[in-house]
């Protein structure tokens, strides 16, 4: 399935948050959404998840308007992992992952649901404590459990908003690698990221947003140029092999 934003724009309380954004997320790819704070990445992802209606333009799922699709059907096609985890879910890790099967309650058998949940728990490495209460987990463990919930949906489209923001480097690598595996299995994955090294390493394509506009889209090598860093982030970079490390501020560049 292809998720497509067809020149969408959004103004909220007089602020132009997004301006004519046209992009798509295709099966088999991890699309990274990057850009400075306030660029509109999370807003764009929320629109792609059907949580916000764009002012103009459409969001299409295999050509069908996302906002006219029955909610339950949309729930099966699209899994969304928000930036902020709920404060405390007292249920067991397995029960949390099982919530991901709610959109399938009328279409899947109990065995199918069990299998999907077990696969998701295995994938994020939480099977060992599947029966523990999710209230007693560390931040990293909880993030993985919520990811398991999103994976258990087995949706063709997976949208994640800064999924590695609160994770240590090992956990972040594990999670990004998991998105790669999802893409390899044919899912279309879109991830909002701040870590440019992770974006360069794991994303098939990168879309750069700045001040509500899509500045650039393409492979990491095409997009992550020194000029872009200076223009969009206002930083000069140093190259360590293929990875660009933000090194100093550029005083002359247009600051976001």
């Amino acid at each position, binding site marked *: 399935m292809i998720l497509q934003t067809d020149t969408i724009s959004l103004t909220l309380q007089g602020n132009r948050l997004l301006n004519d954004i046209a992009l798509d997320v295709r099966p088999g790819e991890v699309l990274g959404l990057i850009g400075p704070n306030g660029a509109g990445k999370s807003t764009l992802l*929320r629109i792609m*998840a*059907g*949580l916000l209606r764009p002012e103009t333009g459409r969001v299409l799922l295999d050509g069908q308007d996302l906002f006219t699709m*029955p*909610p*339950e*059907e*949309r*729930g*099966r096609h*699209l*899994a*969304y*992992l*928000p930036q*902020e*985890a*709920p404060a405390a*879910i*007292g*249920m*067991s890790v397995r*029960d*949390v992952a099982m*919530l*991901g099967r*709610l*959109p399938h*309650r009328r279409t899947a058998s109990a065995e199918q649901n069990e299998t999907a949940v077990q696969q998701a728990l295995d994938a994020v490495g939480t099977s060992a404590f599947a029966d523990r*209460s999710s209230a007693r987990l560390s931040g990293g463990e909880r993030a993985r459990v*919520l990811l398991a*919930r999103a994976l258990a*949906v087995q949706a063709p489209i997976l949208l994640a908003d800064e999924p590695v923001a609160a994770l240590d480097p090992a956990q972040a690598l594990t999670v990004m690698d998991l998105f790669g595996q999802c893409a390899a299995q044919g899912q279309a994955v879109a991830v909002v990221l701040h870590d440019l090294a992770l974006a360069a390493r794991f994303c098939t394509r990168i879309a750069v947003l700045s001040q509500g506009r899509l500045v650039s889209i393409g492979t990491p090598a095409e997009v992550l140029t020194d000029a872009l860093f200076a223009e969009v982030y206002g930083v000069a970079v140093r190259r360590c092999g293929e990875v660009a490390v933000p090194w100093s501020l550029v005083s002359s560049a247009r600051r976001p």
Partner: protein
Amino acid sequence: MSRYTLTVAILSAVVLALAILSLAAGPAGISVVQGLSDMLHGRETIAATIIGQIRLPRMILALLIGETLGLSGAALQGLVRNPLADPGVLGISGCGALGAVLVFYTGVSAVWAPALPLAALSGAGLATLLLLALTRGGTLVLVLAGAALGSMSAALLALTLNLVPSPYASYEIMHWLMGSLSRASLHDVLIATPGLLIGSALLFSTGRSLDALTLGEDVAQTMGFPLRAVQWRVVLGTALAVGSGVAVAGGIGFVGLVMPHLLRPLAGARPSRLLLPSALGGAALLLAADLFVRLPVSGAELQLGVVTSLIGTPVFFWQVWRLRGRPV
């Protein structure tokens, strides 16, 4: 047998036993079986009259009102994801009572009987709507709004009592405000049952949506459970259930706070799993409390709402104690 099934089975047995006891308990030494049999066969005996006119309505109302109070507490707590949510604590019952008292006071209910439950429903419904509108402000705002609603309804009720012309009428209102089933009649059963049943059905139907909501509003919506739809069902269900209960039994507080709290360790943290046990637990609690008030303690009969509040406030304190120091 899972712990959930066992909990439901035990609670059902307790409710059944208490319901039978409720029919059997009373000053008149009559046979329940004989009374029921006479009643069903249309024989106008004393036993049939006592069972049919006094004890059966009282039992049915204690069971249904307790059930809906426990259920609405569990549903409200699931919706706002806060263990302090309860129709009494949040002022919903108080506003329902205010609606009913106004209709009673102005004499409208004497002319048109359905006005009483309708006014109670409207009061409870408006209060729930207002609270939901404020829920987005977070836990602190919700609890404060509930306290404000409760105080407002208490003040207006006091004003009404102040203005009531005869001391007898004010005694009537007071008696009813404290919550009681001692004068429950078949007429009350007929007035309240539709609202109680439809409210229950609406609240029971929210289980899966409440489960989804534990992941936050956004995720629930992307899974096909729009928040608005759940909110409306909980608002309507609570208004119907609490309003109908208040209309015939007055203010009975804390059942919805106590039951989810006591049963959560047994039923698990999934909100859908808490609905049925809380409903059964609420029915058991109210049946037991109604049996307790019939005990000849000091000559005068205790008021039902007073007993549930005495049971409920320690649990309320306990909840607040547990929440201390947590960010709100």
